[in-house]
Structures are given as structure tokens and as C-alpha cells.
């Protein structure tokens, strides 16, 4: 038994060198996969966006829509699929009577929003709010059918309202928290 485990010194040196080579290769390969600078940048951007979105809620409360628009545009340039930014911009475009742009960003928000989406700048803004934005926008451009479609999504009823009734329904829905 003792003889079976006995190795000569050359054999041990070769084993050590092989082990060392393997360790060095693993280190080099793992370092190549890591981009620490990149990670740090992403973290910073994420923090900035969160702050911007929270700030937008306050700006809109204070009526400073232009500042809110600029902030959300910056967010959107970094992250085009950001639901909060798209929803906010949809509301602002709607306020400015820029209905085409409102539809564009509202649809993008709708596509990216989860079913239980709640905005981080206003707890009363959720996926039904996106439907309401779309319903109002379609109404103002005269597409009453699509406006009705969106209203149906909100009230979960199969209705087909006349323009006058649709207007009243939109007025009612806008007064309550969805």
C-alpha cells in the first residue's frame, strides 16, 4: 500500500504546474466576462431614472407639465419601453392636443404594461388609465368605435355608446379613480 502511493518528485512537480496552469486560465477567462465599469454605469442610470419618474409625479401635481415632459423624454430616450414614461407622455400629448403622438406612446405603454401595472409616480395610474387615455384620444379624433372599444375594456361591459353618451361616460370615468 505504501508503495502504491509513493510518487517521485518529478511527477509531483508536473502535477503542480498543471494545476497552476488551470487556475491561471480560469482567472483570465472569468476576468474577460466581467465588465465592472459597464455595470456601474447601468446602476447609476437606473437610480437616475427612478428619481426622475418620482419627480414627475410632483411636477404634474404642481402643474409644471413642461418640466415633466422634458424629464420623461429623457427617460424614454434611454429606455423606450418604460411604461411610466410612455403613460406620462401620452397624457401630456393628449393635453396638448397632439393626438397622434398620444396614441403612439399610449399604445406603446399598453403593449409593455403588465396586467397589474401601477405607475411609480402616481398610485392611481394603472392599466385602465392607459385605456382611458386611448379612449379619450380616439374620441377627440372622432374614432368613436375605437373609443368605445377602450371604454368596454374599462367598464367590462359590451356597450356601444353614441358620441354624446360616450362623452358623458368619458367624463364620468375621468372623475373617478380607476
Amino acid at each position: 500500500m505504501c508503495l502504491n502511493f509513493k510518487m517521485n518528485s518529478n511527477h509531483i512537480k508536473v502535477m503542480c504546474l498543471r494545476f497552476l496552469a488551470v487556475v491561471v486560465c480560469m482567472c483570465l477567462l472569468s476576468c474577460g466576462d466581467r465588465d465592472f465599469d459597464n455595470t456601474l454605469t447601468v446602476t447609476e442610470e437606473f437610480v437616475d431614472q427612478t428619481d426622475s419618474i418620482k419627480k414627475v409625479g410632483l411636477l404634474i401635481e404642481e402643474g409644471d407639465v413642461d418640466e415633466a415632459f422634458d424629464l420623461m423624454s429623457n427617460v424614454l430616450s434611454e429606455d423606450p419601453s418604460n411604461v411610466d414614461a410612455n403613460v406620462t407622455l401620452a397624457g401630456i400629448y393628449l393635453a396638448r392636443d397632439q393626438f397622434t403622438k398620444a396614441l403612439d406612446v399610449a399604445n406603446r405603454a399598453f403593449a409593455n404594461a403588465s396586467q397589474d401595472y401601477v405607475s411609480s409616480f402616481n398610485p392611481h395610474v394603472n392599466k385602465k388609465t392607459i385605456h382611458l387615455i386611448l379612449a379619450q384620444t380616439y374620441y377627440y379624433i372622432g374614432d368613436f368605435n375605437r373609443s368605445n372599444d377602450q371604454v368596454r375594456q374599462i367598464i367590462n361591459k359590451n356597450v356601444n355608446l353614441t358620441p354624446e353618451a360616450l362623452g358623458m361616460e368619458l367624463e364620468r370615468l375621468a372623475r373617478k379613480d380607476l
Partner: protein
Amino acid sequence: MKTYLRYLFFLQFDCIKWLLGVCLVPIMFLGLTADAAKIELRSQKTQRNEIVVQQGDIISLEVFIDVGQVPSSAAEIYLSFEPDKLRVKDPVIPFDQGDFHNGNVALNKSINNHEVGFAIVSNALPYPKGTGVIAQIRFVAVAEGTAEVKFNVKPEDWDRGKYTFFTQFNKGQAEPKSFKDVVGAKIQVKKTLLQIDKFGLQRFVYDNPGDNINLDDFAIVSGSEGKPILNWAIDAEDKFGRPVEIDKNGANQLIIRPVLPKTREDEIKVALRLSLKVGDSLAVDSTIIYVVNQDVPIIKAFPELRFRIGAEGIILLDNYVQDEDNKNAELRWEVEQLPVELKVAGVSLDKVDRSKGIVDNPPRLAFRTGNPINSEQHFDINLKVTDPDGNYDTATMRIVVEPLPFVRIDLVMPSELTLLRNEEHKLELARYTDIEPKAAIDEIVWDVLPSEHIDVLVKNLVVVLRPQQDWVGSAEKIVIRAIFEGKKIDESSINVTVFDLPEEQTRTFPIMLIRNPIVKNEFKVIAVLSDVSEMTAAFVIPEVPDVLPQTVSLKKIASSREVWFCRYSLSKPPIKGQKLIVSIVGKDTRNQNIPPSTNVFEF
């Protein structure tokens, strides 16, 4: 006469000496002494033999004799003393002749440094008898201790020719006799007291500022041998310890005037050392005096001078100075360098020659500033008052400039205000008043001019507008005035409209208000009416003076024949309960006015 006296004296004297020379021993040993004859050395002052003096004192002694009822025509006395303790005041003529013998002084001199001799011979009858003073002599007490002055009466004194005796007539012949009782003087010499009258000296300096000090007048020297020569050593320094040169003249007068301080704060410290050499010893005393000047003008504490901006502050300087030896009119006031801050703050200083800083007479300062300030400004001015002697005092006066209760006021009330019928409305004045400083608003008195149908009340900075019962109308002007110290400083007016809320029958066609789901201060107004060519909406938010009424044209929604809309936005989201009145007018396709429709929305 002189020759005669000398002859007589020497005749007698030679006879006596001859007789005594032959009969010396019999005289001494056979007891040729006059019965009851006595000679005594005693103090002229106390007539006692035991005398107490102090070192340096002059001791006046008299040689008193009692020769009984037998006349005596002459006497010769010799005194011995200890030269280390006593000194003859006048060694050349030590004795003064007494009143006993009326004759010629035959001997009056110092024999050596420890003996003096005196002899007198009567030159006219009758010869004296009984008691009397032969002579006086003055000694100076030189050293401390006990000293004796004795008559020479020992036998060897005769041999030396220095024996004390007198002549007595027996059977018409003068015979030399020794005194039976011989009493010398015993003198106790105490140490000399040398002292400076410190209190008196300091008081003199206080009471006579600038006068020369006769130092010797303040030296107490017991046993003053006439007028002793006192030595004064002087050292002076100022209050910072710097040496000051001070002079003393030959008469021991300290010359104070050149070093007399000019202000009450300054003082000169003078160390004086007085010494007197008496015999072999040296008596010393020392003191310190402080030279101050009581005749300087003194500025009493100035009060803090406060005045409001735009007003004038005056201070009469005469009220704040005190000078013992000069009238106020003789004093000169100066303003030292004006503080830069004072100039920057625009404080003008009247009654002052600015180039020299000298204040006009009668001295008063007048301050005035017109620059606006927001808070109290403090300035310190250094003033100096000088009397004709050049003495002066300085003091700092603090000037406080107070801002006016307000510096700037801007009252801007809403130009238009819409009220509802029978509802009062309140406006907070602080909201519409821009005033500096803010606290000054409390000092403003508010006045209002009510209109015909609207009562106005101001209380606690709140304007209450109260339309009269059921009155509805427009453009009633309300004026609100801000008054300070009886003067109007600003005013603003409000055009008030009071109207009734539209009733249901005024809604001739539907009007809707759709709020933006995100931007809560943005709305769309929807009107539904067919056959319309144009529509205009008028917006009124009653009781909110910040939002003026406005009109906006509606536009028809594309592909719709009857739905019109317009955008309406507020600067901020409306508060809960706030009302918005929307009235829409327009024309139909035949260019006829359509019946207007009004709706009231409450947020």
C-alpha cells in the same frame, strides 16, 4: 574796658590759680567746698537731667548753679562728653552766656573733641548769689545710645587746668570753691525717625495737578538738626512700565507739569526714596505716588442714539461732558475717523467739519440717512473732547439706524372677481401684499371703499366681501387702501361681479367636461349640438381671484357632425369643491345665434 576785664580776670584768676596751686591738696582733701553749692546740667526745656532725644536732635542744656547766700564773682566750668554720641553744635563758641553773672566771658571754647570749657568773671558789684544759669550749650545727638555730659571735678582735672569751680567771698575775698553737688546730664539718644508723609504727598498730587511738589515738605524728620539735607531719589514710569523722565530741581521740587497725564486713563507712577545721613547711620524711607490729572474733561457714558431712516437724530454733546476747571464752551469736540460703514449706509453727519472732524460750537451732532435698510444698522463713532490745556478724553458713541416699518409695499389685488349670489368671499391681504420687511404689514392700517351693492370689511388682514341680499350684477369697484401713519401709501381696486348659478333650463344642449387622466389641470369641454357653424365657451371660476374669466373657441371633431370640443387648462389642479361655470354660445349654419347653454362643474 576789655583790658580792664582781662586784668581783673587774670588778677583774680592768677591769684586763684596761685592759691589753688599751693592749696590744691588742702582744698580737695580738707573739703574746701562751699556748703550747699550746687551745679547742675539740665535741659533748657524740661529742666531735667535725664533727657530723651532722637538721633539728630539738638539738645539745649543750661548750666544751673546754686551758690547759696554768699556772693560769687566768677565761675569756671569744663564739660566732658562722648564724641561718638554727641557733638557740640557750635564748636567755636560752644556756650552762650547765662544771666547769673553779669561780667566778662573769659573762656568759651572746645578744648578738644570731647571737652568744652567756659569761664565768666563778674565785673561789677553786687556779685550774684543764690541760683541762676551760668551758660547754655547745645549738643547734637549723633548716634543712638546713652550719652553723658559730665562736669570735670576730679583732682586730675585741676592738674590739667580743666577743673570746675566757682569763687565765694569770704571776708571780702574771693575764694575758689568746689561745688558740693555736681550733677551732669544723662542723655538717651533714640534712633532717628525719617518718614515720608505718603498720604499728604498723594493728596497734594491729586489736589494740585501740575504743581511742583516740594518734596521736603512731606518729609518727617525727627531730630532735625536745623534744616537737614534730604536726599531724594526718583524713578518714574508710565502705566505700561515704560520709563518716564521726571525732573527735580535743586530745592527738591519735583517738576510735575511736563509729565502730567492728558487723560484720565493715564497715570505716572513715581517711586520716591528719601534718605538722610545722621552721624554714621543712614535713615531711609520710600513710597510710590501716582500722578494723575483730575482736571481732564470726562465724557460721561453716551446713550445709544437711535433714529429712524429718513428722520434726523440729534445729540447735544454738552450734556455728556464734565470738566472741573473749564467751561463747556472752552472744550473742543472732534470726531475721529468716520466709519466707512457710516458713509456706505448714507448716514450724513451735520455740524462737523468733515475735513478736520471738528464739531461746530455749540457742540451737537445731527445724523440723517435716506438709504433704505432692511434691518437695524449699528455704527460706532469715536469722539474726542479736549480742554484748553490739551487734556482730553475719548469715548465711543453708538448710533443705531432703524428701518422704517416698511420700505417697499406693493398691493396688487385681483382686478376681477366673480362672486355667487348671497355668498360672502374672503381675501387674505397678506397674499396680495408684497412688503418689506414682512413684519411691517402689522403696522399698516387698511381702509376700504365699498361699492353700492357690496359691503366690505377688513379684519385681521382678511377682506370680507359680502354682496347684498339677492343682488346680482357686474363691475362694482371696490378700493382697498394701505395707510401708514395717516398717509395712504398704496391702493388697489377690484371689479366684482356677482351672478347667480345657472339653473337647469339654461342647459339648452349638453356640455361635458372631461378631465385628462394624467395631467389633472387640463380639461376638454365637449358640446354636442348639430347644425352649428361656430361655438365659443366662456369660463368663469367664481371666488377664485387668480383665475380670470376667459373665452375659448370650440372646434368640431373630425368625422363628427355634432360633437365640438376645446381645451381648457388651469395653472394648477383645482381644489376640491371649486366650481367652474362654462357657458357656450354660437351660431348655427344659418348664421343665427343659438340659445346659449351653461353648465356648472364642481371638482
